[in-house]
């Protein structure tokens, strides 16, 4: 394939941030279709518009997802990207790799694809960027047979679950996010590969309320670690922090021009519930008032740790803005034990209850959060058989528009207007 002039893109080769343009050019030396990626992108830079056609339904046999079809609208100029489908390869939990595995995937992609990737897609998959229709099955064959690996989700199915690194390298993880993510991914292979839902559905797993996988913002079901006993305090380390011997916030502010650490300004006063105080040089926490926001723990990781009775809060229904505006996930189960010991039974039961209901009442292309909005939170809780809790809301309703049910009202709703008129003439 010919090398194209890319004067506009070339300007993105300077500057200190890694340049995808330089990278593409390098790759083009062995994978010449990369010239056509560059060429078509240059044309977009000139025209200020995308040059990809709308959609394109392609895939591998038996799967309803994992491939996003894509065709150039200027294939004559850029034959190397005439077909340019992406392949979503399900990433391992927390995106740890051996170089062996990674190299093997790269080799496959050299063989079957463009040589370009996204590491990773926003949902979590490895995105292998651009190949022709006829390469899909051979790639899939090699992926499954040679690497024992599989595609992720796309379409109206369960999307590739993702998790923060959790216990693997973080001291705050309140459950094993990797295991939960992996277990559920395996448990729901069918749901990932064969679309049977009204619309997409996403799981994300964060080990604590810091939510490093942004689950509350972008998953239909967010499992966010928390605890229900007391924050563990190491008073000796508190003193070290106060003395300035340990950098605040795990060193996250090193280099900043900040005054010496002040436990009052930086911890006590920023606690959103005001439930911390010093008694002499002892730090005290009224744990019954704590909302486990993590701030104090973040600031003093060597002095404070989450409690030991750990589990997760389950939040449901996050999504991007289309159609009704973005939603964060709503707290539905304040605390659930998340344990491999019983194969995550409680969580799985919950998920299936949500799905059963959503698959029945959800409209086409209606995310579960939208269905919840449509039917209302009280009804959602009642079909989920969850007792309504004040924790479900930020505040009680301020309008007086209660939907009473007939059985809740003595005498029911049937009344005889003639009888009524006997006492209340018109």
């Amino acid at each position: 394939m010919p090398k194209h002039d890319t004067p506009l893109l070339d300007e993105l080769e300077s500057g200190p941030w890694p340049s995808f343009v330089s990278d593409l050019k390098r790759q083009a030396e062995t994978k010449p279709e990369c010239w056509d990626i560059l060429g078509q992108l240059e044309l977009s830079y000139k025209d200020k518009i995308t040059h990809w056609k709308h959609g394109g339904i392609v895939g591998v046999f038996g799967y309803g997802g994992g491939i996003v079809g894509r065709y150039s609208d200027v294939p004559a100029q850029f034959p190397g990207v005439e077909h340019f489908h992406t392949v979503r390869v399900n990433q391992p939990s927390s995106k740890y790799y051996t170089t062996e595995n990674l190299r093997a995937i790269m080799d496959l992609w050299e063989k079957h694809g463009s040589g370009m990737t996204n590491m990773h897609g926003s949902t979590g998959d490895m995105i292998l960027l651009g190949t022709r229709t006829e390469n899909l099955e051979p790639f899939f064959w090699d992926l499954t047979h040679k690497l024992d690996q599989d595609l992720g989700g796309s379409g109206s199915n369960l999307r590739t679950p993702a998790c923060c690194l959790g216990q693997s390298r973080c001291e705050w993880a309140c459950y094993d996010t990797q295991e939960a993510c992996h277990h559920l991914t395996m448990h729901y292979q069918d749901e990932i590969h064969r679309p049977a839902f009204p619309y997409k559905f996403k799981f994300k797993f964060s080990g604590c309320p810091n939510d490093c996988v942004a689950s509350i913002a972008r998953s239909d079901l967010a499992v966010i670690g928390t605890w229900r006993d007391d924050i563990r305090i190491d008073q000796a380390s508190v003193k070290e922090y106060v003395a300035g011997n340990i950098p605040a916030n795990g060193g996250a502010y090193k280099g900043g021009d900040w005054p010496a650490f002040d436990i009052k300004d930086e911890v006590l006063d920023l606690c959103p519930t005001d439930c911390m105080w010093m008694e002499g040089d002892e730090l005290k926490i009224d744990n019954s008032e704590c909302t486990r926001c993590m701030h104090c723990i973040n600031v003093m990781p060597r002095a404070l740790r989450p409690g030991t009775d750990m589990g997760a809060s389950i939040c449901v229904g996050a999504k991007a803005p289309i159609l009704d505006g973005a939603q964060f996930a709503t707290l539905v189960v304040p605390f659930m034990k998340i344990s491999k010991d019983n194969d995550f039974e409680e969580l799985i039961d919950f998920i299936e209850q949500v799905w059963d209901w959503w698959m029945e009442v959800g409209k086409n292309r209606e995310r579960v959060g939208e269905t919840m909005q449509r039917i209302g939170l009280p009804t959602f809780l009642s079909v989920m058989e969850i007792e309504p809790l004040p924790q479900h809301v930020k505040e009680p309703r301020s309008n007086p528009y209660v939907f009473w049910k007939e059985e809740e009202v003595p005498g029911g709703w049937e009344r005889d207007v003639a009888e009524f008129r006997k006492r209340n003439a018109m």
Partner: protein
Amino acid sequence: MGYDPNNPMEGRITDLGPPKYEKFLPPVIKNNKGKWLYHEIQEPGIMVHVSETGDEVYTVRAGSARLISIELIREMCDVADAHCDGYLRFTTRNNVEFMVDSKDKVGPLVEDLKSRGNKFPIGGTGACVTNPVHTQGWVHCHTPATDASGPVKAVMDDLFEYFGTMTLPAQVRIALACCLNMCGAVHASDIALLGVHRKPPMIDHSRISGVCELPLAIASCPLGAVKPAKAEVNGEEIKSVKVNAERCMFCGNCYTMCPAMPLADPDGDGIAILVGGKVSNSRSAPTFSKMVIPFLPNTPPRWPETVDAVRNILEVYIKDAKKYERIGEWAERIGWEKFFEKCNIPFTDKSIDDYRLAYDTWRTSTQFKYTSHIK
């Protein structure tokens, strides 16, 4: 053997799922999983986690363009093979992390990374601007209103100093989504760049019958702006749709459902800036980003208006915010009217919500601060 197109179901394996993560954990990680006691960022991009077993793991984090080649990934593997026993990982924001199990291995690893030009900038930890989450843009998607990788490169070139240092009042998460579908958590980012359309869809009557189910196209519009209509194609009357442009808010959902309704336009499209979102529950609850600049033009290859706008907001924030205060927490504290004043951003009606839950954003009190906006 291999894939046989004449016999596609033969030997097919499905539903394997991803490899079990355990196989990919470096030994020090595997041995200490669930036992970590605390961590410390030693310098930007370099942290240590200490286990109750006494083990330590040192992590070096490097930036990445995310849109990367197999060559570059192989180079990452080279580094990991040389220093990390052949393990590496990627973060949820697309940085790459190299881990070693003792302090003395850090120096050589860092040296190696630094020796490779600007391919592996070290940083992205703590009170920094870490790697922007972004999407496909003109590189791959069919609905973008802007490019993704280009604006991100331009912004990060400009903000590079903040990737490799930790001098900000708090972490700043920048994200870009190239259309309102918002692939990525753009709606909850400290600074969000969002590709927006501003021209209503055209109707390609000549193709619509072939490529769209009209009822779906009509139902797709959240505001009911798409209506059934007749059109003439080659002298014949066909069933098509029309768009009530006055009711259109350019969401693009109709185009998603119906390829014969393209919106994209060189002059219509551009970038909106939203700020003040956050995801973590730390201190304050998760918060949506708010639209403060409704439109900046698409100016490839370096989108200078967007780059300037982002830097401006960031600089004002740096000067004005308190330690630990995310951009949204800062704006809430000083009041959004002061945010606009301090950042010298003109306020327009476009920043006033008029969608479904709009009333909840109206100011229903007499509490406000005077700013230069009030004449």
